[in-house]
């Protein structure tokens, strides 16, 4: 072979180097031609789009940046400088603290920061791939953390029950993070470490859990003893406001609506007629009316429903309304996911002899929840946006706080700027959520894609 090659080398066909592609099909020009001007219609659409973008961007830029006033003490100063041609951002920066924390006292704001910090840390293990037992950590964050956070935010006297729950919450938090550290450093689990350290490794499986539980109880007792002397000044919920209240209301709404929605959806598909009727009635009733009416009902009528001795706090009424409303919505989302699971899956689970709850928790729900992620996140985004309506019943959420600035004599009438700021803030929050859901969809749904 080599010989042949060598002998024929002088007559080898040598192709000329291929010509470069026509200059208008490569590089920037080529890209533009291909993507923007491939046909007359496309060219027209491109020019129209460019014009729309230009009009929007230039106007917003002129108002929000070019003519804007950043330093001023009153709105009159802004008006004297630029009139209405430019934004008066000074009003927004002066009130920034109120937009975030409402009327919460300055000296106590650390409690809100600490609370949200704890929550983020508690949820953080979700993003560490090596950590095991994420479900338990997530469940503890959703179910137990509200007691600790609620106390941090509200303060005041602690009843015995609240003291107990706070201790459990702190212990659970410490345990979660010990576990995370063990996972990250050695790839083992906290349970294994405790079991081997106490010498229970040789014992049978069902005995191994005792040292873990014992350690948890001991730690909880220590925390309980320590927290006894610790008390925070009471902060009335009237003082809560701004983004803080928006996040609290929508956060509780989200945490409650997912489990409640699952239960309602299962009830709706249940074979027991009475339960089904009640679930259908509940879902259809609250899904078919606007949130405003539910909020109104909660605020005006809940005090009439309850015995005279109980005088509920307004934020609690609003939270109940939001929870009821979002549970009904979530139930429909979950039902959609359940319907998408092929009947074969149910039949296979039943053929294996699984009970109803095992079938649901081990076979159906994991698949259904995966399918539902985009819709669930969509509902969460909707909920975050819908909480703006609590301002109509007089809760100082972000929107009402943004509006309150305009009634202050120094900033009399300033309201476009705060609302613009609010829109941007909402956009950033919701956009992050929706991008994250798309990411989850891709990573979790990787096995689902059919090619």
């Amino acid at each position, binding site marked *: 072979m080599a010989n042949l090659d060598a002998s024929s080398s002088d007559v080898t066909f040598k192709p000329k180097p291929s010509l470069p592609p026509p200059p208008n099909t490569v590089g920037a020009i080529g890209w533009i031609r291909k993507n923007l001007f491939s046909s007359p219609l496309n060219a027209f659409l491109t020019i129209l789009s460019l014009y729309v973008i230009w009009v929007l961007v230039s106007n917003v830029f002129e108002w929000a940046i070019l003519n804007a006033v950043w330093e001023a003490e009153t709105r009159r100063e802004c008006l004297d400088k630029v009139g209405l041609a430019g934004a008066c951002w000074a009003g927004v920066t002066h009130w920034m603290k109120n937009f975030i924390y409402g*009327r919460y006292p300055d000296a106590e704001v650390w409690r809100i920061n600490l609370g949200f910090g704890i929550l983020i840390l508690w949820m953080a293990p979700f993003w560490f791939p090596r950590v095991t037992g994420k479900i338990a950590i997530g469940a503890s964050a959703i179910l137990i953390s509200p007691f600790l956070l609620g106390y941090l935010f*509200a303060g005041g006297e602690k009843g015995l029950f609240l003291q107990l729950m706070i201790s459990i919450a702190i212990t659970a938090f410490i345990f979660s993070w010990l576990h995370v550290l063990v996972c990250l450093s050695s790839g083992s689990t906290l349970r294994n470490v405790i079991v081997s350290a106490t010498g229970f490794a040789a014992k049978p499986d069902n005995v191994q859990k005792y040292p873990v539980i014992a350690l948890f109880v001991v730690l909880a007792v220590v925390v309980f003893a320590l927290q006894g002397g610790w008390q925070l000044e009471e902060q009335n919920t009237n003082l809560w406001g701004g983004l803080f209240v928006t996040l609290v209301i929508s956060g509780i709404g989200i945490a*409650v609506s997912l489990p*409640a929605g699952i239960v309602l959806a299962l*009830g709706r598909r249940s074979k027991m007629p009475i339960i089904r009727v009640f679930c259908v009635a509940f879902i259809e009733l609250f899904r078919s009316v606007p949130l405003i009416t539910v909020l109104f009902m909660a605020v005006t009528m809940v005090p009439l429903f309850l015995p005279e001795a109980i005088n509920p*706090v307004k934020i*609690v009424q609003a939270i109940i309304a939001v929870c009821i409303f979002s549970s009904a919505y979530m139930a429909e989302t979950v039902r959609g996911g359940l319907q998408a699971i092929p009947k074969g899956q149910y039949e296979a689970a039943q053929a294996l002899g699984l009970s109803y709850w095992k079938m649901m928790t081990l076979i159906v729900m994991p698949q259904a929840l995966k399918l539902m992620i985009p819709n669930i996140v969509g509902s969460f985004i909707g909920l975050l946006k819908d909480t703006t309506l609590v301002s109509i019943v*007089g809760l100082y959420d972000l929107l009402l706080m943004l509006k309150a600035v305009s*009634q202050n004599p120094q900033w*009399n009438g300033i309201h476009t700027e705060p609302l613009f700021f609010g829109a941007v803030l909402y956009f950033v929050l919701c956009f992050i959520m929706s991008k994250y859901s798309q990411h989850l969809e891709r990573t979790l749904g990787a096995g689902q894609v059919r090619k």
Partner: protein
Amino acid sequence: MKKLSLLGLGLGMLASLGVTAGEAAAQSTLDIVKQRGVLRCQVGTPAPGFYQLDEQGNWYGSDVAICRAIAAAIFDDPSKVEFQSVTSAVRFTAMANGESDVLSRTTTWTLFRDTQLGLDFTTVNFYDGQGFMVPKDTGIKSSLELKGATVCVLTGTTTELNLTDYSRTNNLDIQPVVFEDSNVRDDTFAKGGCDAITNDKSSLASTRAKFPNPGDYVVLPETISKEPLGPVVRQNDSQWMDIVKWTVFALVQAEEMGIDSSNVEAMAANPANPEMARMLGVEGDLNKGLGLEKDWVVRIIKHVGNYGEIYDEYMGEKGKFAIGIPREGSPNALWTKGGLMYSPPFR
């Protein structure tokens, strides 16, 4: 089951997030307030002059001062007030269902409201009246020239009804455009979305101050309605009603007698006449019927000042927060100066 879990959850949240329990039906409002240690006072969403928020999140304003005066009379501490800021749409239900102890927000006293909402109006602490504001360049000099005009108005208030009445009475065929948010209303007006704006004259003044060129707008001279504004309490608790009513009277009477926050303690130590002595609790026991301490008037004046001081601070033209409504010659002047501010005698 689901409903049950939700209900349980709701009740659980109620229990954990702080419920004020233990207010039996038979208790009087004063007992409840004393037991709670704080007065629950309802104001509206911020309105210049009457109730406003500052950057530190504190409430101030003339209606706020009334609440502080009541708290001062009961607790000798004007800060023992929990302000509940409620939109006008739910103000009466929030009162009727027991959420607030007293409603002190620009609420017009009408027969209907006094009799059919389970509420009682106590007395008047500010006399307002509805007027119109138009751009100066329209050349309109009187509200009777507004034939066929579009007028911007806020919803849920008596102004909406007054506007309709006025239009029907004078055959003006006015088209109302109703808003929920005063800023949206004012922007609409400033951009020419309506020919005139109508509201209580007190708030027209602060609306005008919002615009880039306040001089371009005029408030028309006519006052088309009577708007007596005052604190409101729940029906059937006459002791509590007396406390609120006489707190306002004490503010007016103190001004009439020349007692103010700077000299009240000196006056109490050395009262100039028997009536002053009775009022300040030096002589007699006028406080008994109210269920308050002897020096309740001293406490009020010491902490919040008299009516004139409050007016100057928040409504008039002198104070730092004042919105610039002249008092001279208005119904809000003392009766001795031709106004309507008049307190029954303290005896």
